[in-house]
């Protein structure tokens, strides 16, 4: 139970310190859940982001629900049974990440009619937005480690021979980047197409 309260607190923190939603939440999840607490591996997290993109609802909310479920099963699976424990964990994660919306944003709506025109709010965001951009840029490298590179990019510095690139993944990466900028394709088709392409390419 204490573990679930901690999960609630973790997601509350992530929700509270993310501005701009969606992709901005990904690096914070990465740092807190993958690097710091090691609740899941980088590859598992990247899979969750992909699943979150293909299901209704925002990525951050979906990831919180999913990871909450997982942690619920780990913490209370033996006591409550897999499904009830998972659902309870999912509730803690979801409510945690929503708490800033239901408290701070609601309070801003009630008390500050012109919240976004406040000069301090503007100044703070002027600093946070570019930093978030840097975080997202670094998240690209973490995600590349789980797909494009057969050994993490950082290990190049330690051992040059241990470095390898999956050409199949690199090909898909370039194709998706090209499609994203050239055409406006629904993200679900992009992800399904990439999975199909990988299946075919790895058979060669």
């Amino acid at each position, binding site marked *: 139970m204490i573990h679930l309260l901690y999960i609630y607190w973790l997601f509350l923190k992530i929700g509270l310190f993310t501005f701009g939603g969606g992709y901005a939440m990904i690096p914070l999840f990465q740092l807190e859940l993958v690097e710091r607490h090691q609740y899941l591996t980088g590859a598992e997290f990247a899979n969750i982001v992909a699943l979150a993109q*293909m299901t209704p609802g925002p990525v951050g909310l979906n990831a919180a629900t999913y990871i909450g*479920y997982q942690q619920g099963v780990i913490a209370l699976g033996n006591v409550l049974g897999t499904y009830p424990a998972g659902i309870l964990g999912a509730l803690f994660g979801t409510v945690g990440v929503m708490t800033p919306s239901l408290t701070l944003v609601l309070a801003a709506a009630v008390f500050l009619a012109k919240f976004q025109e406040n000069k301090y709010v503007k100044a703070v965001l002027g*600093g946070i937005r570019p930093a978030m951009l840097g975080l997202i840029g*670094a*998240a690209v490298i973490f995600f590349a480690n789980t797909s494009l590179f057969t050994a993490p990019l950082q290990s190049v510095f330690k051992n040059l021979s241990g470095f390898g690139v999956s050409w199949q*993944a690199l090909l898909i990466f370039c194709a998706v980047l090209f499609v994203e900028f050239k055409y406006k394709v629904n993200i679900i088709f992009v992800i399904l197409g990439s999975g199909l392409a990988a299946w075919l390419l790895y058979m060669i």
Partner: protein
Amino acid sequence: MKKQLILFKSFFVISAVTLGGGLAMIPVIQKAFTEKNKWLSEEDMADIIAVTQSSPGIIATNIAVLTGYRVAGVSGAFFAAIGAVVPPFLSIVVIASLVQHLAASETVNHIFTGVRAAICALILAAAIRMAKKIIKGKFEIVLALFGFIGMLFNMNAILLVILSGISGVIFTLSRKKEEKQ
């Protein structure tokens, strides 16, 4: 109570059909609340979008809270937010319980490697689009580098956000002083 139920139902439906969430919801909400029900004016809608973009947390639930509040007060905000959360919650719980049973076969692994490569490209594309909007001068470049390097070295993310917010205030205040002189 009628308004609250309509809010719940509208956000339930909007959340269930908009994949990827967030800002994709806005045109649908606009249609439902300014055109069909006439509960919000175009100005209200513009305000909601502006506040959403400077608030912490999930964009979709922020939009639901702000819209619900304008239409029916605090209870409206809660009904709208719960409506927006239920469909993704149910779908993820179902997926999470299924994934536990999926055996990790070689083929599944290969497919997901491809999917992860795609996600990597999608995030890079999003970062490039964001950079075009956000980067205006040296200050933004320095802070973006700070975020990038901090993340690579696993710096505490919360501390990173707080420090960048503080430097935003210092930068804005010092620039105002220069303008005055």
